[in-house]
């Protein structure tokens, strides 16, 4: 029975992983044509009124459908010089199509996976029960950093999701006036809380990078699925296991991409033209949706999913038996017991 459960859960995980990668690949493919659009001034063929064949209403300007057309304007707004920007169509089709649809599948899929995992596996208990003795796992600075990043991320995720999905989810419930008022407040929250997230991101990188360098325990941890799918299995790990390292690097890399693209959106047209803005928006949306899905799993395992995990980030202290089971190498090193020494720390 256990094997079947484990297999099912594994298959589920695998499907999700494949889905996430497919989304990433699709996102890159989608973003490419927008980024690769060439800007240029259209140079019509030599004009000769008498030789020129009579044209219908639209055929000559069909060229405008595939390439951007820039000219001269006598007003100071440089953006106004772009007469036609056909890539707006590609941007619209991308954000209203794949980004919105795949993004909702990704988020809902992750929520479904987490619920399914909980139903099959339940809360992962401390096998030996609580010992009653605790050890310090995260100091004040570490917890401050985590909660600064976490709280700002949650605000940014919800207010960001509202931009993509609010029109379909909240607007019918709240009505146009209330929904707009909420959306304006969300927009300002998103713009300002972004800076808290960026500070949290830098702190996260600085204080935890040394614990997140891949080491020899990681492959074993991954091979055993972190012991998530079978009771009593606890692959050894230092302060952070391979799963946590993956979350760390997802947050650091994904968060950086989101921050940079977000700054482009926060200061529109300060660093580029309309192509830059469109590419930044798609990048921002796609990477955010992926990171939100990852963080849903992270939130689950840190709260409902595992007994004793919440203590680490709330009080900063964890039960010794929890530490021994989930971070055996870290615990042994902490206690000064002989432990195999490799890598750097």
């Amino acid at each position, binding site marked *: 029975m256990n094997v079947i459960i484990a297999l099912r859960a594994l298959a589920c995980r695998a499907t999700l992983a494949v889905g996430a990668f497919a989304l990433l690949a699709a996102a890159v493919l989608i973003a490419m044509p927008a980024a690769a659009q060439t800007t240029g001034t259209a*140079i019509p063929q030599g004009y000769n009124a008498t030789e020129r064949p009579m044209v219908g209403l639209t055929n000559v300007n069909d060229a*405008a459908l595939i390439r951007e057309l820039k000219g001269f304007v*006598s007003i100071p707004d440089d953006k106004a010089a772009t007469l036609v920007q056909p890539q707006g169509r590609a941007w619209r089709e991308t954000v209203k199509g794949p980004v919105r649809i795949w993004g909702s599948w990704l988020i809902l899929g992750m929520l479904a996976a987490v619920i399914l995992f909980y139903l099959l596996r339940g809360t992962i208990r401390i096998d030996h029960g609580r010992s009653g003795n605790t050890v310090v796992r995260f100091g004040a600075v570490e917890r401050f950093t985590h909660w600064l990043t976490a709280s700002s991320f949650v605000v940014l995720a919800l207010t960001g999701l509202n931009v993509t999905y609010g029109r379909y989810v909240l607007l019918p419930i709240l009505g*146009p006036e209330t929904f707009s008022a909420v959306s304006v407040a969300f927009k300002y929250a998103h713009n300002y809380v972004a800076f808290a997230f960026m500070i949290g991101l830098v702190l996260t990188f600085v204080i935890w990078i040394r614990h997140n360098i891949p080491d020899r325990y990681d492959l074993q941890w991954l091979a055993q699925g972190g012991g998530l799918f079978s009771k009593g299995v606890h692959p050894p790990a230092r302060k952070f296991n391979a799963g946590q390292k993956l979350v760390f690097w997802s947050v650091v890399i994904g968060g950086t991409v989101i921050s940079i693209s977000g700054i482009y959106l926060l200061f529109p047209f300060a660093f580029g033209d*309309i192509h830059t803005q469109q590419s930044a928006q798609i990048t921002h949306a796609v990477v955010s949706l992926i990171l939100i899905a990852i963080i849903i799993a992270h939130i689950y395992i840190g709260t409902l999913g595992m007994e004793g995990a919440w203590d680490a980030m709330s009080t900063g202290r964890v039960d010794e038996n929890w530490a021994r089971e989930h971070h055996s190498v870290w615990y042994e090193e902490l206690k000064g017991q002989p432990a195999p020494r490799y890598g750097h720390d």
Partner: protein
Amino acid sequence: MARMKFLLDAERCIECNACVTACKNEHEVPWGINRRRVVTINDGKPGERSISMACMHCTDAPCMAVCPVDCFYKTADGIVLHSKDLCIGCGYCFYACPFGAPQYPQAGNFGSRGKMDKCTFCAGGPEQDNSEAEFRKYGRNRIAEGKLPLCAEMCSTKALLAGDGEVIAGIYRDRVVNRGYGSGAWGWATAYPSGT
């Protein structure tokens, strides 16, 4: 019911910018906002053409499609309008619009935008027709007064036409037939791809 459209005959536009000025004056458009503009391509070179461009009131309007708060609506005449009370100034309509029509006043810190402003085809907004509130937010509602957009009405060469799509297309077609050439109705393939 008429289907309102703009048509720009680039063979006639002399880049006088009267349409831009008329629009600014009629609607008391604030500094920095340009509901209509004249773009000159190949400036000073053979094949130079000037095109007066504003919101084309597209059949399948991209701004309507991408707006996160769904603040756009279409009138029975096919004019694309929006509610400034609902607009949150996110800027998405500008990313989607092929013609760069949406404009934003600078508001607050960073690059945060105020309520979007664009050409209304001189048809105001959701407020009571010709009310003070409507004028303040959207400008004059000439359509409600039985008049056509002022930019086209005062175009000295009649390069810019505004009105029922069938009628202005007919005028343009006659011109092309009579003079024997034309450079196409600017933006029509993009704005009205199905011809409606």
